[in-house]
């Protein structure tokens, strides 16, 4: 049952999916959505656990996350923590976390946003015409990372995205989420994500060392 070659890019995509906005209608035609609609739960959950194992993370953390998804109020909590209206305690943008006293004194579209845009370009990626989010949003950065990891499209960019960006700001961001979150899903996700990124970093370093 366990897919033996659970690809690394798919582990990055899991991260993007877990952090994405519950309000959004997922893009039609995505096979992942299709599968979730058909409720193939066993392979799905197994795949997630497999991913954790592959990355060397305690699978219990996955289970904690999964257990929390049906607790009511998840969408409202996402809104309150990350979206609005107005100022939120945990804005999920790298720029907001990269200066002193984040995020109260942080600014949006800071130099981090420009830096990741350049990385995207190096990987052959551009923001869509109406992306609906800023380039240094957590989900955008992990989406780019996913792309770079798949079929070895951009190992140098993947390395930079993790080591120069995600690994630097996401732990701070997740610490704030753990403090501010009231819903077990985001508490669990904020605890899990830094390990996940750390594990991805090791993987990317290992690949770089071998290439």
């Amino acid at each position: 049952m366990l897919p033996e070659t659970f690809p690394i890019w798919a582990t990055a995509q899991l991260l993007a999916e877990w952090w994405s906005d519950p309000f959004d209608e997922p893009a039609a035609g995505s096979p992942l959505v299709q599968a979730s609609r058909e409720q193939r739960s066993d392979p799905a959950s197994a795949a997630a656990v497999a991913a954790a194992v592959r990355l060397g993370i305690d699978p219990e953390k996955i289970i904690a996350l999964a257990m929390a998804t049906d607790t009511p109020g998840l969408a409202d909590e996402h809104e309150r923590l990350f979206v609005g209206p107005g100022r939120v305690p945990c804005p999920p943008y790298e720029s907001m976390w990269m200066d002193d006293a984040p995020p109260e004194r942080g600014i949006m579209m800071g130099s981090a946003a420009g830096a990741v845009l350049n990385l995207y370009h190096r990987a052959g990626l551009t923001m869509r015409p109406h992306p609906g989010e800023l380039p240094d949003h957590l989900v955008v950065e992990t989406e780019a990372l996913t792309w770079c990891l798949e079929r070895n499209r951009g190992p140098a960019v993947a390395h930079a995205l993790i080591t120069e960006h995600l690994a630097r700001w996401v732990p701070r961001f997740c610490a704030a989420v753990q403090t501010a979150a009231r819903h077990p899903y985001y508490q669990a996700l904020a605890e899990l994500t830094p390990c996940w990124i750390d594990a991805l970093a090791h993987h990317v370093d290992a690949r770089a060392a071998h290439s």
Partner: protein
Amino acid sequence: MVEIRRRHFLGGMAVGAGVIAAGPRLRFLFASEPEGAGVAAAATTSAPRQVFRTGHSNNCDGACGHLVEVENGHPVMVKAAPWEDTAISGAIAQKFNPRICIRGLSQIQNTYSPDRVKYPYRRVGERGSGKWERISWEEAASTISQKFGAIQDKYGKRSVWIAPYTGSLSLLEGVVGVGFRLASVIGASAGDFEGDNQGDSATPAGWNYVLVDPTNPDNGGGLFDGHEGTDFLNSNLIVLWANNVAETSIPDWRTIVDAKKKGAKLVVVDPRFTPTSAAADLWLPARPGSDTALIDGVINYLITHKAYDEAYLRAYTVAPYLVHPQTKKLLRTTEIGLPGKDDYVVVGADGKPQAVGAADPKSTQLLGTFNVGAMSASTAFQVLADTMAKYTPEHTAALTDLTAEQVNTLASLFASNHPVGIRAGFGLSHWYHGDLTMQALLTLQALGGNIGVHGGGVTTFAGGLTTTAFDLPGWWAPEGTTSFTVLEPMEACDAMLDGKPYPVRAAWFMVDNYAQQMSDRNKVVKALKSLDFLVVSDYVMSATADLADIVLPACTYLEKTDLLSSNNFYLQYMPKIIDPLWESKSDLDAVTLVAQKMGVGQYFDKTADDYLKEILHIGDPEADSNVAGLTWSQLTEGAPHRNTPTIPYVPFFDKSFPTKTGKIEFYVEMLVPFDQAVCDHKEPIEASPTNPLFSKYPLVFLSTHTRFRTHSQYSNLPWLKEINNGGQGFLEINPKDANARGVSDGDVVRVYNDRGVMKVYARLTESIKPGVVNCYQGGWDTVKIKHYIEGHPNNLTHQIANPTQAVVPNFRSNAAYFDCLVQVERVKG
């Protein structure tokens, strides 16, 4: 294997080899390189920077031009923009090279502020509880349409109040914007388009008393105009009265500095020592609210020293016109049996009364009381002189808390300099009798021959919105519709609470922070909470948005097409530079959506550019002379100056005044019932030592602008807060007043009167007059963000309306923010 069956969790699962083979899902990005490109090639370097010219349309009379540099689709730099040195017609205009300010330089931070409202929301808790549910634009528009319709059916069409305000001074959105078009087509009532009586219509009312007949339909209910800012280069004496140009209007400050370099003298009247005061040759910290008395003192000096322009008074004012001794109105020939058609009466060199039309204007008597038939009538100038006689230097000094020497110095400056240009700040309009103060300033300027001349005038702001260059009637009321019912902000507050003159049960605020910036905040909040339905469009969660039923995410000026022509006489096309962020929409787009749901979408079916072409009548031979010959490429490729009769623009340059007499009416017949025919000083309605309330509340409470924000915009930007006391509000208080109250620097104080309370840190400073305190307005008091410890300056202010202003329909009600008394005490512990 634990079976984990979780809906959301499943959404993220890769579920097998087949799915994995499909590859990564890209929602925000797309791949611009072909499949299988392998290792990323060398950097796809960003395109060269694009540069856009736009106007900064926020609520500031700087009306700056910005060059916005864009890289990778994002703005990265704002700089001062150049201006055309020709007018539309090709005539040489002027060199105009103003500076922009830190607010302009912070605009990118503002557009990308984490305080931005990203999506529409619906309230789910009590009003003001901060509980929201995200909804789609479709749902928001449908709800608004349905609610407005139901309320209009039940309470009448006017029970919906559309309230666009000055948050943006641009044409399609804001103070003359699309909200009024919506109001017209759905029969709603709507707030004032200009003279904006949240504190700014007292001096415009006064301007009309003297220079415009507000009863003449041709004058549209009242006008307001001023000298182009660069005209101060032509002044020999500049008086900045109750404003702080060095901090609030940077482009105009450049002109003042340049004028000083050319030799102009500068007088500043302000109870505070500001950067503007610091540049003055003469700084006069007059008692706030005593300004009319000071002006009267100068008028009396000019009269007693015969230092007035006789020829000008004879030619252009009602100075020689006789006043009926009983009715106090201007005397008519028919009242004294003079032959010929009915006319006003003057007295010739021979001492005999004549019709104005028959008299030699060069020899009419200016002063004197004459026997005319059975009565004894004085000239208007004589009435003025008699009324002003009590304003000796000593008496004036006593009223204004200045010295007689200071009064004499000011007066002799007026006597010995020409032209004199006066910039009358909105600080004067924030008083109950601000109308009278403007009347007095115009009287003074008439004496010196300073109206309708370069370098002269009394200007609050210029150009802009009161221009005939825009076909506002056509924009607001499309063919086949009737224009909206005007309901001023102060009147609307009463209508919400009392249902008079008719009930207001719903409102839509756009570029308007009514619940914080309007006076008597406790009353305003009570009124808004009583509404059945409240919509607020804003780009931050303002205090007004906090109270809404539906919040709509608005755009900043970089995200929408518009046109700015405010305060200066240039046309500044504002292109859309970036797409609206998240799901924000321009007011034009938001109104269009709602209009479509309400069945009036046919009035909103054009693009922004199309509307601009229509409103300016581009290509139409019937276009207003101000914009005659304007082409679209001229408009969009630079910032051309309008075809004003003079450049810099001077109102009434032809000395033709749209008054009943055709002259400057410093004797104001229509104000006889209000005992205000001439500009005799009146004490403020509240902030006067003659008020019995003064013993309880002995401090005058000002709430002025700060250079670090524009009203309540930019208040929470990190870099601006960093240089503005960390964003923490404070009360400026003189050490004398502080010591008397046991207040030390940094103490928390309670500022209060019978209307409300606020708590704030005290900052002791010699730069404010004893007896006066100041707390900068515009900081936020919202559910999530508070820039004062508790409350807001408008908790203390009032909505006492001056009925005199009703003679000018467009400027009939005014919020007198500064005419306010408080007490201050230290908060213990």
